[in-house]
């Protein structure tokens, strides 16, 4: 049976997924080795049950992130923090040092100060999820088995980890393969 | 820019300014007593704080100039020790001892009561400049815990109520 693999995009720039797509021709080989059951690049709405491996891009920034992450943890055997935002909080977490008001300030900056048309923070339910007081890396919210740092992780590094996992090994990165940033 | 040749240097300005203030004279006499030794810096800072109430930048620069020390060294020392303050203090000070003996006997509750009533945290001064709230690590008065120092006088075996009452009469 092929591994049921998911990738998910939380609070991040999607650069890690771009890097994933950068694996080029290996993607074709990969398609024969795994079942991609959930991902921003495929059209599945609900995170499925019984997933073997999930790569998580992005930090935990809002209540939606937290909710889906917990669901993912319950339905997945192995979680991999995918990229610096997931591993360290990285750029999304740069609002944290600005204290308890950082949420309001971020929204103000994004939707009012930088708005060309119709400035105003969206208020209706379900449009902008409530931001968490602090952005946290994935492993502060749920337990994570493996870490794949980099901003973004180069395609070769992602491939290395995937191949090891598919081969049933605990992925092991060493030296510059672990470089943050 | 390289050291400014035209503008007056900070140290010169401070020395000129200090010549009109008697307290600087007293401080200088004190430094002389220590032969302007650099290792007397902490003693000098004690005296300066006693004379001026707190250590402002010009005062630190004056000391640096007289003891022939780089300003960064004087600032580094002044901010290392909790006893020195670089901000002006309120009319009255209230130092709550948070040593272990006082703590197990309820100093935290005394602290909470003052913070709640005067809406200031440790290290802060009320907006009307009446009261500065400080904490001490241990004033060595453990036998009479919990102890609070009001304007330099230690009061023994206090309760939150008694402390607030003392402050009431003080302010």
């Amino acid at each position, binding site marked *: 049976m092929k591994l049921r693999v998911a990738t998910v995009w939380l609070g991040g720039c999607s650069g890690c997924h771009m890097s994933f797509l950068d694996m080029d021709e290996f993607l074709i080989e990969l398609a024969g080795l795994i079942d991609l059951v959930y991902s921003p690049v495929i059209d599945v709405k609900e995170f499925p049950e019984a997933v073997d491996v999930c790569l998580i891009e992005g930090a935990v920034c809002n209540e939606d992130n937290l909710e889906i992450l917990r669901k993912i943890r319950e339905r997945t055997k192995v979680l991999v923090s995918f990229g610096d935002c997931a591993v360290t909080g990285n750029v999304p977490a740069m609002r944290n040092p600005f204290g308890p008001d950082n949420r309001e300030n971020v929204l103000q900056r994004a939707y009012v100060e930088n708005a060309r048309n119709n400035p105003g923070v969206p208020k209706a339910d379900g449009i902008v999820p409530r931001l968490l007081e602090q952005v946290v890396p994935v492993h502060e919210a749920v337990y994570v088995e493996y870490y794949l740092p980099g901003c973004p992780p180069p395609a070769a590094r992602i491939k290395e980890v995937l191949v090891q996992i598919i081969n049933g090994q605990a992925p092991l990165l060493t030296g510059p393969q672990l470089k943050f940033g | 820019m390289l050291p400014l040749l035209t503008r007056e240097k900070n140290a010169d300005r401070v020395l000129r300014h200090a010549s009109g203030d008697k307290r600087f004279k007293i401080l200088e006499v004190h430094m002389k007593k220590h032969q302007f030794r650099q290792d007397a810096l902490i*003693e000098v800072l004690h005296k300066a704080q006693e004379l001026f109430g707190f250590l402002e930048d010009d005062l630190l620069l004056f000391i640096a100039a007289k003891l022939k020390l780089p300003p960064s060294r004087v600032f580094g020392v002044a901010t*290392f020790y909790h*006893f020195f303050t670089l901000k002006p203090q309120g009319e009255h000070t209230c130092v709550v001892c948070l040593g*272990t003996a006082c*703590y*197990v006997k309820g100093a935290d509750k005394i602290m909470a009561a003052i913070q709640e009533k005067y809406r200031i945290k440790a290290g802060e001064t009320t907006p009307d400049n009446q009261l500065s709230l400080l904490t001490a*690590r241990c*004033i060595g*008065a453990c*036998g009479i815990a919990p102890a609070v120092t009001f304007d330099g006088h230690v009061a023994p075996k206090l309760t939150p109520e008694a402390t607030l009452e003392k402050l009431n009469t003080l302010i």
Partner: protein
Amino acid sequence: MQLDDLKALVAKHIGARKKIVLRTCMSAGCMSSQADVIKRNLEAEVKAQGREAEVEVRRVGCMGFCGQGPLIGVDGLSAKEKLFEFVKPTDAPAIVASLQGAACDVQVGNPDHPFFARQMRIVRANGGIVDPERIEDYLAVGGYQALHQVLTEMQPSEVVDEITTSGLRGRGGAGFPTGLKWGTVAKSAGAKKYVVCNGDEGDPGAFMDRSVLESDPHIVLEGMAIAAYAVGADQGFLYVRAEYPLAISRLQTAIKQAKALGLLGGGIFESPFNFNIDIRIGAGAFVCGEETALMASVEGKRGTPRPRPPFPAESGLWGCPTLINNVETFANITAIINRGGAWYAGIGTEKSKGTKVFALTGKIKNNGLIEVPMGIPLRQIVEEMGGGAPAGGHIKSVQTGGPSGGCIPAAYLDTPVDYESLTKLGSIMGSGGMVVMDDATNMVEIAKFYMEFCMEESCGKCIPCRAGTAQMFHLLEKITQRRGTARDLAKLEELCDMVRHTSLCGLGQTAPNPVASTLKFFRSEYEALLQPDPFGPRPSVTTQSAEPVTL
């Protein structure tokens, strides 16, 4: 000045004494309850009642029973001293009248109380007896005779030998053999050497050194002078916390008086030995109790420690060999010289000789300072001398060693108080703080209290102490706020080990002790606060695909 001149001075001083002496404790504890007003009132009352011929009021240092203060001791009335407790300024007329037999309702203490009876006073022999601001009083109890003896009859090496024989160990906490330290400094080459007295008593809940400095400053000065002679130093520094203004002013007075009589300064007792002592005032930094940090502070710098070796004995103040001992260590010296090292070695246990002063505080009936022989069971101290927990409470643990020590549970109260036994329990002797906690005390909160202390007192130089104590405090906060999980507790334990073994100085190395010892003896209190971890680690999983992939 020669010894005979001193003796004449003493004889005159004793001759001027009056029959009845009202000893008024004017140490910081009793002063906070208006002991100065009480003394003034007593003096006025003695005059008013016309008793000036027979009665004198004497300012004395700490009598020890601080929790019952202000205290007035009465000598010369009967064979036994009488002790008035909880004295108020308005009690003065009644107290003076009682000297002639009038009834008096001021509470009278029992001098046979185990709090006093179980004590053995060497360091505090003169506390509460001599006037700390009059050198004549100190001379009258044999003061400076030990210094005279070493200067006139002993070689420096003989002094070191005597201290070695006594088995005295450093009273600042670590318990390093004092004789060995003196010997090392004495042997170190150097034209200039220093003697430093560490009076930076920073442990919260400890006030032994304050009391000694306030009550009997000369015993410390004399101890330092003897040490200086033994190691070949001519300059001393006495480092005192700024939080102890009374101790500082009494030391200044004492030094001035000793200099005036030629007991400090040049050519002491008309010998070639010179010794000067300067006071250095701390400014609120616990880390300055660490000897290398203290030296940096004496040099007027930021009080940050440095790696040892080199040890101060070889390279200390300004690179010169430097002897650093604690106040209580120096206060033991005159007795050892006067009565011999062998006598001292006969007190205490095999490895811990002599007596130790403790500040007995916290949830206990009798608060105050006690001096007991080493090896006394902890139970005797807290139950017999201390009278146990106040009504309704039960003793849960005894904290020794302050932020560097640990909490000893009630089940171990039969432990003898000596360096090794306390260390075995995960605590330390420390400088002598002994804070009793009853069953209302939450041990996790206590651990957090100490960790916050260490975090705020960390100098910030080394990473494990600066960032490690901050993380440990954060974890303790999470746990006490019921946000912590078993994983957080594991991280806390991991940091206990790491901070202990990698920190630069004693502050960091011992900072985990209060956490480690409460985890050892009161683990269930931590566990009761932990939260479930539903998104925590999974049972181990394997992912095995059908075909191996080739790269």
